[in-house]
């Protein structure tokens, strides 16, 4: 069963095309990671699927209905990218406020316990740390016993322990049959949680595959050397950048490239091998 669907969706903000004829199906029980650099269109897609905005053209569906219709959103939970809890309200009150919108919400205690927030119940949200606010914002997505949750960069600003605690909460929900759509620009986060990865850039789907497959796609290394002579044509190089006599070679197999450089007797110095950021990898792949 398809819980969320975008069909040939485009979204324009003035002159900017944020989504460009994008198609996406999310099936019940999936944990999908939406991966892509800043400005790729991830949050726009989430805003369309959660009913905050409307597509310029194309159709979005949530559980077969229009996400702009409030009744459709009874099965929906959302953690937006920006937290913004009402600062004068206590954590318990914010939870109650959100719960009041759903026909069969999770108990307040149960929800707070699931995300380790019991101690914060009486605190005003304005006095919480950034990480605590973020944890509350994620917990709120689960208040209405949703069938599908959208988490827009849920762990931004969290330390490692809090991030892992939050991942456990998301995994538990998924293990109970819940469907999750998660955006992130951290490959690590998507690897830790998702089984399916959708890579978005420039408002289009670049790749839609298993984590292992996408990892192979973006596991590009940057091999940098300084050499007075031009580089020979080397196998496995997917991109080359030059800055003076410094050359950056992008390749999925850095070991082999280094061996080839030595075998060809290229007079290089200052060898440096480092992983590329996702953004660099995608830029290379899409160039």
């Amino acid at each position: 069963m398809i819980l969320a669907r975008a069909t040939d969706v485009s979204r324009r903000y003035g002159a900017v095309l944020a989504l460009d004829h994008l198609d996406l199906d999310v099936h019940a029980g999936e944990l999908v990671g939406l991966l892509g650099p800043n400005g790729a269109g991830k949050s726009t897609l989430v805003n369309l699927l959660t009913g905050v905005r409307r597509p310029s053209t194309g159709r979005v569906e949530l559980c077969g209905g229009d996400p702009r219709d409030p009744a459709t959103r009874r099965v929906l939970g959302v953690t937006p990218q920006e937290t913004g809890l009402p600062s004068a309200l206590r954590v318990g009150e914010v939870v109650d406020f959100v719960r009041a919108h759903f026909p069969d919400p999770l108990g307040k205690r149960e929800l707070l316990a699931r995300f380790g927030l019991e101690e914060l119940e009486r605190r005003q949200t304005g006095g919480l740390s950034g990480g605590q606010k973020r944890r509350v914002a994620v917990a709120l997505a689960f208040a209405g016993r949703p069938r599908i949750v959208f988490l827009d960069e849920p762990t931004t600003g969290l330390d490692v322990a809090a991030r892992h605690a939050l991942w456990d909460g998301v995994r538990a929900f998924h293990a109970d049959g819940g469907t999750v759509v998660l955006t992130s620009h951290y490959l690590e986060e998507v690897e830790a949680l998702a089984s399916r990865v959708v890579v978005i850039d420039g408002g289009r789907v670049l790749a839609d595959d298993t984590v292992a497959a996408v990892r192979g796609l973006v596991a590009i290394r940057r091999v940098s050397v300084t050499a007075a002579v031009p580089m020979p044509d080397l196998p496995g190089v997917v991109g080359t950048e030059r800055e003076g006599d410094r050359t950056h070679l992008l390749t999925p197999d850095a070991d082999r490239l280094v061996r080839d450089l030595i075998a060809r007797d290229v007079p290089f110095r200052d060898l440096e091998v480092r992983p590329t950021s996702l953004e660099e990898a995608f830029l290379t792949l899409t160039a």
Partner: protein
Amino acid sequence: MTALALTHARFQLIETVRIPMALIGSAFFPAASMIFFVVPFVGSDRTYSTYATASMVTFVVMTSNLFQYGIGVAEDRAQPWDPYARTLPAGAAPRFAGRILAGLVLMVVSLLPVVLIAAVATEATVGAGAFLAALGVVVVTAVPFTLMGLAIGYSLPAKAAIVVAQVLFFPLAFGGGLMTAPGGAPGFVEAIAPYLPTGAAVRLMWAAVGDFGVQPASVAALVAWTVAFAGVAAWAYRRDEGRRFS
């Protein structure tokens, strides 16, 4: 829907009570004016103190609604909580209804000190019929000022809304004759007051509690203001929706 509107109203009120400056703004000044001006100067004169109390009540109706909606709405629009709340399974209606309900409650809270001070410390008096009529006038005249506040709140960013509400409220109060007894304002004020929303509102209030004739032209002006504010508020609301949520 109704239960949700009440929930929204409840949380709006909790937020206001936790940061009571907003209440002080609309409740303290009229109460202080009663104590420092009305009580010592006209408190012993039954007619004048009744009119003065009616003026202060109108003043509260204006400031309470103008500030709550003008500033409150503009501030809410700036918060990321607002788009989040739109992902909850409720339309914009319960949130809007909740805000109006909370606004009415806060207006009543701001009115209480004025009415209490008038009853205890002055000779001001009204019969049951006049009191009910005044209550009706409060409800009716709250409408244009609510719409005026909403027009400001939905069309301006928070910082501008604060300034505009503050710049508007004094000329409206003075120009409408709220600071003076009926017929006692400077000539030019007497000339324009019946056609300002504040002046038209207070004239209705004076007519409810005293021997002041209803002026049809003034009532027509109030109706025209209400329609105009409704138009601007609706336009600003749609424009804001279109910008942020379409």
